[in-house]
């Protein structure tokens, strides 16, 4: 029941968001925030059960034949994620209400509705035990991310970024789905609980390599790892509350979530962890480099988010329990400070209308509380004591030093963390305290709704740093237990004594401060290097994207050029190619032999028909062509007559006569003299096409008629016509009795054709000349 209630609360709130905002006025958003808060409380109350080592499982039948059930799993790790999702979700709801205060309430309602729907999808993803169900929710988060990035749908950049995010994460989602299907194929189950229990079977599966590669694709695209890192900075087109929620605190961590979940399963596959360390390290380097080059307030934060995701991926790849503790710890730490910083960025941009970091300054005078929150959060980001970020960073270094890897990841981590310190200084000190004369005009100050989020998270960061053991025991311990399967003693404390980690921290902070001080010259120098532009950006994505569109429009222009002749020729050429391929592949499967005695009368009529057909193509006048068509028709009537089909002959004679009369009547009203409508070149090509087709028809018809026909149905009709339908003419009995409905349909076709022809041809009082253009 727990899971259903949780999902219903969030989904229900999403449905009610618009009416609540429309009617509730300024109390609307706080009212709505009660829903994620309730979910948070509900989840928090499960903490004692989970901390005791229990796992809450529930399952509701959905498609049992495919092994897909709505099954859910709450363990330490999913509890941690759910608490982050609902907790930050509560703050985001409050914040968004204030952020959109000047916008029409319907707009705010739409935004909150999407945010709450997104929260539902996120909860579903982290709580689902059935991997197919998890994938459904996973894709829902991609879709909602698309809607939220493109929320300012009148801006072209927003639309482009939204599409890019959707294509990258949606494409990765498809890879993930393939991986899940392969897991199901290997184990016969989609349940994650069973997958961990039978992980040795999965590792022994012949599909192991594709499973891992596809899963990595899904995780790397979602969590913006190299080479897919470009979409996340572009996604900053989203309104800031969405950026804070989706693109830093929760959604982009889904890839990390998935990798952490399966790290234990693939523990015995050495290249799984190695890939993670390498990709994570590369992402860290690229993102910190790009962070130095970024100019926008949110862009700098986005690049540092990518770097943090790289750190997480790298940590998961490292072996040892310390690495798991470090992963979980950094997850929490990052969610706290990065969401807070995004909120502060949003406040600054919202107040000034200026998103360019270099043009902001001295905002502390007008936004004092935002400045306080920004400073607190950035200190946590920089890893200064006594913030939680300090402990988290110590753990990061300890995990690296105690793992089996060489010094390279440590060096990378030092560089990246220095950049983090630099970024921390640049996003908190500079816009709020320095450059006072640059202070732009402030449109409006802080409101309680805009402050509650950043202050809560920033103060939470310092509180967690001062009493770290509370969170270590209640959340991190159970999460590590869920990931490793063994209880690990997690003791967080600020002071470990003088350790190698402390030395590294000192190096990092010194370098970081230097970076922050010399930020502007470094930044300008890096930006001046033209060669760096687009090196790590989305140039390749654009090439593929535009290439696909160009291919589509080029092929459309070639194939759909408005010339009916071209259309028919393309269709006929395809038919000829397919027929030829079919004959080629059939090989000698269909031998050709002559059957039946040669009858002179039939031979003569057949020659007449063939000559008539060929004459049709050669004659210059339409009337001549009509005569030739008539010859073919009457010749086939004769063939029917000569081969025991008097009914057919009778019908063919009648129809052919009627047809010739009608076509003559039409031709009388048309210009008789025929001019060539095809160039000689086109006629030659068409003649070749037609000849090839004729050759294939000949081969097909000859080999078909070389084998005796299957007489089963004919014998049935012959045996039952009189006994069941009391008719002696078997053809007639088939038509009006055995296949009566079919004949009724045929009669209807004739009737409709007549009606339509009559409607076309009846005289109108006014000429119908369609307007051109």
């Amino acid at each position, binding site marked *: 029941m727990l899971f259903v209630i949780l999902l219903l609360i969030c989904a229900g709130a999403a449905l009610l968001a618009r009416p609540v905002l429309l009617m509730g006025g300024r109390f609307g958003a706080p009212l709505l925030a009660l829903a994620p808060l309730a979910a948070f409380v509900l989840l928090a109350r499960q903490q004692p059960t989970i901390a005791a080592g229990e796992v809450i499982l529930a399952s509701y039948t959905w498609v049992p034949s495919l092994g897909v059930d709505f099954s859910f799993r709450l363990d330490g790790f999913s509890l941690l994620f759910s608490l982050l999702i609902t907790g930050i979700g509560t703050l985001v709801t409050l914040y968004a209400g204030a952020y959109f205060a000047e916008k029409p309430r319907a707009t705010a309602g739409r935004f909150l509705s999407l945010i709450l729907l997104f929260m539902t999808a996120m909860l579903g993803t982290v709580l689902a035990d059935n991997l197919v169900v998890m994938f459904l929710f996973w894709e829902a988060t991609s879709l909602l991310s698309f809607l939220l990035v493109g929320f300012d749908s009148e801006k072209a950049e927003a639309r482009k970024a939204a599409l890019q995010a959707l294509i990258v994460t949606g494409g990765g989602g498809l890879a993930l789905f393939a991986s899940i299907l392969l897991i199901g194929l290997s184990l016969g189950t989609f349940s994650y609980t069973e997958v961990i229990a039978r992980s040795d079977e999965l590792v022994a599966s012949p599909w192991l390599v594709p499973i891992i590669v596809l899963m990595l694709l899904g995780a790397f695209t979602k969590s913006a790892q190299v080479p897919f890192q470009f979409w996340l900075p572009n996604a900053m087109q989203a309104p800031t509350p969405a950026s804070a929620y989706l693109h830093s605190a929760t959604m982009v961590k889904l890839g990390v979530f998935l990798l952490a979940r399966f790290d234990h399963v693939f523990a015995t596959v050495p290249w799984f962890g190695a890939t993670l360390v390498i990709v994570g390290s590369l992402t860290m380097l690229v993102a910190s480099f790009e962070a130095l080059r970024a100019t926008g307030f949110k862009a700098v934060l986005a690049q540092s988010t990518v770097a943090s995701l790289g750190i997480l991926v790298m940590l998961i790849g490292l072996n040892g329990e310390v690495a798991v503790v470090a992963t979980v710890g950094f997850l929490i730490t990052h969610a706290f400070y990065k969401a807070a910083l995004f909120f502060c960025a949003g406040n600054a941009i919202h107040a000034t209308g200026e998103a360019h970091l270099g043009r902001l300054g001295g905002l502390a005078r007008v936004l004092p509380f935002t400045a306080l929150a920004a400073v607190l959060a950035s200190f946590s980001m920089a890893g200064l004591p006594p913030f939680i970020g300090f402990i988290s960073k110590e753990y990061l270094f300890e995990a690296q030093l105690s793992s089996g890897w060489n010094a390279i990841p440590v060096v990378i981590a030092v560089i990246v963390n220095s950049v983090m310190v630099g970024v921390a200084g640049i996003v908190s000190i500079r816009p709020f305290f320095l450059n006072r004369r640059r202070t732009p005009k402030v449109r409006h100050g802080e409101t309680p709704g805009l402050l509650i989020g950043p202050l809560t998270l920033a103060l939470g960061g310092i509180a967690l740093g001062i009493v770290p053991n509370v969170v270590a025991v209640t959340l991190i311990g159970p999460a590590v237990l869920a990931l490793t399967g063994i209880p690990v003693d997690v003791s967080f404390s600020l002071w470990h004594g003088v350790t190698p980690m402390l030395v590294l921290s000192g190096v990092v902070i010194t370098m970081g401060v230097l970076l922050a001080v010399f930020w502007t010259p470094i930044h300008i120098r890096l930006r001046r290097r033209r060669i760096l532009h687009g090196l790590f950006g989305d140039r390749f994505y654009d090439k593929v994207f535009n290439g696909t569109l160009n291919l589509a*429009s080029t092929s*459309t222009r070639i194939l759909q050029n*408005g010339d*009916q*002749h071209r259309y*028919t020729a393309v269709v*006929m050429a395809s038919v000829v190619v397919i027929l030829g391929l079919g004959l080629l592949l059939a090989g000698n499967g269909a031998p*050709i032999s*002559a*059957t*039946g005695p040669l009858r002179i009368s*039939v*031979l003569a009529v*057949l020659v007449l*028909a063939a000559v008539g057909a*060929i004459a*049709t*193509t050669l004659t210059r006048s339409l009337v001549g062509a*009509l005569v030739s*068509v008539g010859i073919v*028709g009457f010749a086939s009537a004769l063939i*029917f007559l*000569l081969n*025991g*089909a008097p009914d*057919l002959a009778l019908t063919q004679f009648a129809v052919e006569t009627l*047809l010739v009369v*009608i*076509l003559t009547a*039409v*031709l009388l009203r048309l210009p008789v003299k025929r001019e060539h*409508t*095809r160039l000689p070149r086109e006629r030659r090509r*068409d*003649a070749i096409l*037609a000849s090839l*087709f*004729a050759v294939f*028809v*000949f081969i097909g018809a*000859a080999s*078909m*008629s*070389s084998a005796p*026909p299957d*007489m089963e149905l*004919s014998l049935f009709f012959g045996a039952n016509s*009189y*006994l069941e339908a009391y008719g*002696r*003419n078997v*053809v007639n009995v*088939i*038509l009006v009795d055995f296949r009566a409905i079919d004949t009724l349909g*045929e009669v209807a*076709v004739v009737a409709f054709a007549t009606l339509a022809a009559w409607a*076309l*041809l009846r005289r109108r009082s006014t*000429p119908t000349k*369609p307007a051109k253009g």
Partner: protein
Amino acid sequence: MNLVFSLAIAAIMGAGIYLVLSRNVMRIIFGVSLMSAGTNLLIFLAGGLQEIAPPVIEKGEEVLGTASANPLPQALILTAIVIGFSLVAFAAALALQVYRSDGTIDTREMTAAEDLGTPFTTGGATNG
């Protein structure tokens, strides 16, 4: 015999294809007519041509004798003849009406749809 049949069918079909590839609407219609005649003969050939007595149950008999032609393709062709006739007659009526309103039976000059414009007016795909 079957090879001669196949040759004749191939000739009729080939001529039909050649006509259908024209830009003159009436020639296209003739082509359709030829192709449907060829198809009918093809179905006829598929039923086998060994027996040439009409498939009628003799007086006093209760089942069709083995020396009769195959009734099944005949029933199919009977339907096909009529459908083919309806199609060609309707197409001819359509062609006549088009000539009355547009003054042409050349498909190159029937551009009412093309005149509405193309989605690729900017001369290449643009991003976003």
